[in-house]
């Protein structure tokens, strides 16, 4: 699995993706890790099928005991079905999840891990060097859904918003925004159910200072592409599958 450091200061952001050993037929996912001095957080650590590659990649950067927190933006299998396996290695870790999904996520087989339900309005996670914010993103696409904003690194981990289901060797960052639009369109129109939720999110996220918008699938947006994406998304009509 490829691993890239996207922010490196007193704390660091890593992205793990484009696993060449990924099983045929499953979608590629971006997993993130925030490494602070005494705390390490894994964001949307992924599905069962990529667990071995993901843990291997993580072990290049941190000792297992350093990982203290997990975050699941929502309940999807590509987000967190590996939870039962992570728990074997991290029985003392805390899992931050939308309160709505706690009882559902427990179906992934983790009993010892400490569940930290996030309330609808969001909250913060203090990792020492940085205080991360849980940004509500309900109905984009999941009904209980959060993004994570890092005000120091100016990174917004945006879950399925900004995602594309791209080729396994796609670049880590979006290189040609106009070409990228074509790939994003269907994903957002089909998976995002609510224009109202979308507008509300645009309003909230528009106020944040974002250098990198980091989705859970496909290329990350940086610099001017962030605003380009927000503008494009604002105009897009979503939830189109209703006949």
């Amino acid at each position, binding site marked *: 699995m490829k691993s890239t450091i996207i922010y490196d200061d007193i704390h660091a952001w890593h992205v793990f993706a484009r696993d060449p050993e990924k099983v045929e037929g499953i979608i590629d996912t971006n997993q993130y890790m925030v490494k602070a001095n005494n705390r390490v957080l894994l964001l949307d650590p992924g599905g*069962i099928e990529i*667990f*071995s*590659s993901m*843990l*291997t990649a993580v*072990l*290049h*950067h*941190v*000792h*297992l*005991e350093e990982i203290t927190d997990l975050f699941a933006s929502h309940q999807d299998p590509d987000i967190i079905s590996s939870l*039962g*396996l992570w728990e*074997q*290695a991290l029985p003392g870790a805390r899992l931050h999840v939308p309160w709505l999904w706690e009882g559902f996520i427990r179906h992934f*087989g983790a009993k010892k891990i400490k569940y930290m339900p996030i309330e609808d309005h969001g909250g913060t996670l203090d990792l020492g060097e940085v205080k991360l914010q849980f940004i509500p993103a309900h109905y984009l696409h999941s009904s209980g859904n959060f993004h994570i904003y890092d005000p120091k690194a100016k990174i917004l981990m945006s879950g399925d918003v900004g995602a594309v289901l791209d080729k396994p060797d796609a670049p880590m960052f979006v290189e040609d925004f106009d070409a990228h639009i074509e790939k994003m369109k269907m994903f957002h129109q089909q998976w995002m159910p609510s224009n109202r939720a979308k507008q509300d999110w645009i309003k909230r996220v528009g106020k944040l200072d974002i250098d990198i918008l980091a989705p859970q699938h496909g290329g990350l947006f940086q610099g001017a592409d962030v605003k380009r994406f927000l503008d494009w998304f604002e105009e897009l009509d979503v939830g189109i599958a209703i006949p």
Partner: protein
Amino acid sequence: MTTQETVLIAAATVTSELSEVSQVAKNMTLSVMNAKTISQCAGESARGFHPITDYIEDIAKNIDHLVIQISEEARTLSRLSVIYSQSEIGLKRYETVIRKAKDAAHVSSLKGIMQKLYDEFENCRTLLLRKLESLSVSLDDMKNITRSSIVISIMSRVEAAGAFEFRKDLEVVADNLESSTEDIRSHTDISYDKIITVMEQLHRETQK
């Protein structure tokens, strides 16, 4: 087939075969009630048949109890097979990490976890084997019951022979008992063989 699949199939086989046994045992009870009435009418000429009907009644009751116990054991077996399989899958995923992460700076932090996973897996295997063994013992008990049931059916045939005008009726009772016993024996054998096959597979895997 994986161990879990073999175990689940074995447990399902035991459950379905035993529900057949339970049905046969119910028929046995009905038949023995009928036999009691006949032998009462036959009076002195069927005196030896009375205790036999009591025996048959006892056998049917014992079978019923054993069916409940074995079905419960089969349920536990299915549950254990799922736990076993989860433990095996987990272990395999971690073994893959060990293989892949050879040159990772922090691979040593997996040491304790691997030991824990191996221990848990061994523990699951032991529990599974124990449950299989106890099921095989229970099924063996069932086999023993059918053995005594065969003896009773022979005795009832002898008694029927001396019951003059009730001979035919009591012979029907003896026939019923014989065929019921045969049914129960064959359902039990199918279950027993399945359990033994799984135990052998598990033992072979342990040796590997």
